[in-house]
C-alpha cells in the first residue's frame, strides 16, 4: 500500500475545505505464537491496516474507519463521515484540532522484531518448554511492529513507529502454576530458557500449597501485580475525565500516597515502548502524576483539557473520547532493594506473583476485588515459610499505597507489557506494602 502519510494526505484532500479533519493511519504486522500442554497449538499473523477519520463541520462531529485504502474506499470513508456529521447536533465540548507541534523524539523500534518470522518466536517457545524440565507449560511469544501517521487540516503532521515483543508463560506441577514474563522493544532481549527456568522454579516452590486464614497481611507484590494496581489508578484516578465527572480520588497537591511513591507517564523512558503522540495528534508530554507521595498531575485529552481549562498532555486514546485520557507509559520510580531484600523485611506476610480478574467495587476509593495466581508464599520473619493456596482480596488500591503504607520499593524495574486492560506498557518495580486485605480463600 501507499506510505501511511500518503494515505493521510489523500483523505484530507477529499474532505471539504470547510470541515476540520484529522486522519490517523496505522499499518504494520502483529504475530503471536501460543503454546499449551507443551506444544504450539495456535500461531497467528495479521497484517494491520486501519484508516481513521474524524471530521467536524461547524462543531458537528463524526468519525469513520476503514481498513481499505483504494480510492473508492477512501471516498466512501470521507462521505460517511461528512454525511454523518451533517446530521449531528453541534457538540459544545468539541475542542478543535491539535495545533502544529513537534512530538518527542522517541523511536522505540527494532527492525529484527518488526520482521520476526514464526521460527524466531517458536525458538523462544521451545526454549521455554525445554527449560520447564518436564513440567507442563503454556503461554505465548508475540512480536509487533506498527507505523502510525497522523495529519489534520490544521497542518499537524506526525509519524511514529514502535515495536514490541513479549514472552509470557507458566509451568504447571499439577497442584501449582509458576509464571514468568518478559517484554521489550527487541525480541532478541527475550530469553526463553531463562523465563522457562524461572517459571519452573516458581511452580515447584509453589507446589502442594496449604490454605491460609484470610485477613490483613503485609505483601510483597511482583512488578506484574504493581502494574495491575497502577492500571486502576490510571483509569479511575489520573484520568482527567474521572476528575471532571467527580469520580476520581485525586486531590492535586495533597500527600495521598506514601512519600516513596513517585509516578510519571513518560513515553521517552529508555525501557518504554510506544509512539510520541496520541490519537488526536498531540505530542505526549512527560506528566508527573505523583511526586514523593504528593498527587501532582493528571493526564488530559483535548476534550478534558477544554472542560477543565488545561492543556492536553497527549494522552487521548483511539476511540476513547467517552472514556477520557489514559497514561500508556507509566513509570514508577524504583528503589534500592532487591526482591529478596524486600522479602527479608517482611515480619509476617505474603509474597505474591500475579493478580487475576481484578474488578472495581467502588471507583472513587478504588476498592478492587481479585485473586492471587501463579504462586503465593507465606513469609515470616523475613523467610519464605511455605506456599499457600490462592486467596481472594478486597482492597482499596489508593489506601494500599497511602502515606506510611509502602515499606519498600524494589530496584527491579521492568517493562511489563499488556497492562491489565490491554493498553500500554508500564515500567515498575516490586513493592513491599504494609497491609493487604485478603477476604477469602479461593476454595471458599
Amino acid at each position, binding site marked *: 500500500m501507499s506510505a501511511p502519510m500518503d494515505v493521510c494526505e489523500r483523505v484530507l484532500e477529499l474532505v471539504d475545505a470547510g470541515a476540520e479533519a484529522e486522519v490517523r493511519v496505522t499499518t504494520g504486522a502483529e504475530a503471536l505464537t501460543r503454546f499449551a500442554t507443551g506444544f504450539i497449538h*495456535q500461531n497467528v499473523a*495479521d497484517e494491520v491496516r486501519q484508516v481513521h477519520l474524524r471530521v467536524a463541520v461547524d462543531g458537528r*462531529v463524526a468519525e469513520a474507519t476503514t481498513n481499505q485504502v483504494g480510492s473508492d474506499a477512501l471516498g466512501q470513508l470521507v462521505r460517511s463521515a461528512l454525511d*454523518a456529521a451533517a446530521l449531528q447536533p453541534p457538540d459544545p465540548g468539541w475542542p478543535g484540532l491539535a495545533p502544529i507541534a513537534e512530538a518527542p523524539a522517541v523511536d522505540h523500534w527494532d527492525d529484527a522484531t518488526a520482521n520476526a518470522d514464526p521460527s524466531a518466536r517458536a525458538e523462544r517457545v521451545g526454549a521455554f*518448554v525445554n527449560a520447564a524440565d518436564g513440567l507442563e507449560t503454556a503461554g505465548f511469544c508475540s512480536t509487533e511492529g506498527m507505523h502510525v501517521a497522523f495529519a489534520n487540516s490544521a497542518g499537524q503532521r506526525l509519524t511514529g513507529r514502535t515495536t514490541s515483543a513479549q514472552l509470557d508463560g507458566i509451568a504447571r506441577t499439577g497442584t501449582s502454576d509458576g509464571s514468568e514474563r518478559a517484554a521489550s522493544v527487541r525480541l532478541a532481549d527475550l530469553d526463553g530458557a531463562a523465563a522457562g527456568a524461572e517459571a519452573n522454579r516458581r511452580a515447584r516452590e509453589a507446589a502442594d500449597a496449604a490454605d491460609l486464614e484470610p485477613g490483613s497481611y503485609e505483601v510483597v507484590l511482583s512488578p506484574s501485580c504493581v502494574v495491575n494496581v497502577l492500571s486502576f489508578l490510571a483509569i479511575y484516578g489520573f484520568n482527567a475525565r474521572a476528575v471532571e465527572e467527580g469520580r476520581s480520588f485525586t486531590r492535586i497537591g495533597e500527600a495521598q500516597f506514601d512519600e516513596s511513591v513517585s509516578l510519571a507517564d513518560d513515553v521517552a523512558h529508555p525501557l518504554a515502548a510506544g509512539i510520541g503522540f496520541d490519537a488526536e495528534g498531540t505530542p505526549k508530554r512527560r506528566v508527573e502524576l505523583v511526586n514523593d507521595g504528593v498527587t501532582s498531575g493528571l493526564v488530559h485529552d483535548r476534550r478534558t483539557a477544554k472542560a477543565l481549562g488545561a492543556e492536553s498532555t497527549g494522552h487521548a486514546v483511539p476511540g476513547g473520547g467517552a472514556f477520557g485520557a489514559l497514561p500508556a507509559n507509566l513509570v514508577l520510580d524504583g528503589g534500592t532493594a532487591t526482591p529478596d531484600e524486600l522479602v527479608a523485611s517482611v515480619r509476617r506476610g505474603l509474597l505474591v506473583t500475579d493478580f487475576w480478574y481484578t474488578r472495581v467495587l467502588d471507583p*472513587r476509593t478504588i476498592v478492587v476485588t481479585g485473586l492471587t495466581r501463579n504462586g503465593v508464599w507465606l513469609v515470616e520473619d523475613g523467610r519464605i515459610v511455605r506456599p499457600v493456596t490462592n486467596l481472594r482480596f478486597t482492597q482499596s488500591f489508593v489506601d494500599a499505597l497511602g502515606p506510611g503504607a509502602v515499606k519498600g520499593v524494589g530496584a527491579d524495574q521492568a517493562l511489563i507489557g499488556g497492562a491489565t486492560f490491554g493498553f500500554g506498557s508500564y515500567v515498575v518495580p516490586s513493592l513491599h506494602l504494609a497491609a493487604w486485605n485478603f477476604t477469602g480463600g479461593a476454595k471458599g
Partner: protein
Amino acid sequence: MFEYADAAVEAAIAAGARYADARVMDRRHESMAARNGEIEGLNQEQSVGIGVRALIGSGWGFASTADLGADAARRAGAEAAAIARASASVPGADLELTPVEVRQDHWANEVVEDPLAVPLAEKGDMLVTVTRTMREHGADTANAGYDIWDTTKWLASSEGHRIDQHIVECGAHMDATANGETETQRRSYPGIRGQYGTRGWELVRELDLPGNAARIAEEARALLTAPECQSHDAIDLIIGSEQMALQIHESVGHAVELDRILGWEAAFAGTSWLDLAQLGSLRFGSNLMNVTADATLPGALGSFGYDDEGTPAHPVDIVKDGMWVGVLSGRDSAALAGIAESGGAVRGDGYNRLPMVRMTNVGLLPGDSSLEDMIAATEDGILVDTNRSWSIDDKRLNFQFGCEIGWEIKNGKRGRMIKNPTYTGIGPRFWQSLDMLGNESEWTFWGTPNCGKGQPGQIGHTGHPSVPCRFRGVRVGVRG
C-alpha cells in the same frame, strides 16, 4: 467472495496443510454515544478481509490480510501453512477433527427494521433525550449509546464447505451516575452492558430507554442515601435475571469451554474446575438447574446458522437436572476429548482472528416460580440485580460479584433499598443451593457484546437466557 476463500484454501493445501479453511468477512459497525444531553461520538467502521487457517501436525497456522484478491488470498493461504509448519517445531500429538456434514448453504437472521437504515438523526435524538432526562432526574453524569454490527461472511474449506451468512446485531445501553461526597452510585438500563441481540432496531424500540431514564436516575440518586448492604455469612439471596446472566456467563459458560478444560487457555483465561472424567456423573447444581448452549434461539445474541467451522447451529445440553452433561466445543477440541461431534461453538472476532471456542447462547431453562413468588417465600433475604463488578478465579470456581442495587426482603415483602450489595461463593456449592427458578414469562435472552478471550484478544458476542433465581445460604456483603 468464495473465489478468494477458495484460492486461500487451495494455496494452504498446496503448501502442505492437511486441512484448511478460509473466511472472508465484511463487517460494518456503527456506534453512537451521548453524554449529558449532547452527542459525543459517532463512529462508522468497515473492515473487510480474509483469514486462513491451516492445520499441519499438531498446530494451527493462521494468517490474514485486508487485501481482497486472489493473489493476496493465495499469499495468506501459503503463509498460514508456513506458520503451521513452524508450530510443528514444538509439537504435540496430531490434532484430529471430528467429522461434520459438508454443506453449501446460506443463512441470515430475521430483521424487522434494518438498524443501519434508521436515520442517524432519529437515533441521536433518542440518546440526547434520554441523557437529558437522566440529568433532569438527578444524574450527575448520564451516558447512553447504541451499537450495530452488520456482518457478512463466506466460509470455504478443503472439505468442501461453502457457507455464507448475514448476521445483523444491535442493541443499546444507558446509565446514570450520582456523585456523593465520598462515593458514586450508578444505575444502568437495561443492564450494565445494555441489551443486545441478533435482531434489528425493533429490539432497541422494545427496550424503551425513554421510559426508563427518569427511574434509573432517581434510583442512582437514592442509592447515595440508602443503607449499606450488611454482611451476612449465610442468607437467602434472590438474584434478578440480568445479574443471573452474568452469573451463568462467568461460573457456567466459561467453565464448560472445552479448550479451557483441555488446558489450551491455561496461561491466560485459565482452566476449569471441571474434569472430563466426571462428565455425566458430576452434580453441578440442584435438580432445578438445566442449562443449554443453543445457537438456534431466534434473536439471541449468540445465535447463528453455522459456526466458523461450518458446524450447523444446534442445542447442546450442558447441565441437565443439575448434572453436568455437556461442554462447548469445536472440531479439534471435541476430537481430542473423545466427543463424537463438535458442539458448534467456534467463532472468530473478525476476519483477522483465529476462530476459537466461544459461548453461543448459554442459559438457564425456566422453571415454574416467579420473582414475586420468591419474595413472598423469603422470610429474611436480599434481592439484588444489575451487575456492577465481577471477579472469578482462573478455574471458574470462586466468584465475587457486586450489583448496582439491592433490597432487603423481610417476612415475604420487599423492604428498604440497599447499596453496594456483593455476594461470593463457590460455583457448584452455590448452584446446588438454587431452590426457586423464574418461569417462562420472565425468561430473558440477555446479550453480552464484550466477552474477552484469546491471545491476541478477541471480543465475543454471547447470549444468556436467564430468569430470576433464589439461592439459600449465600455469603453477602463482603467489604474491603
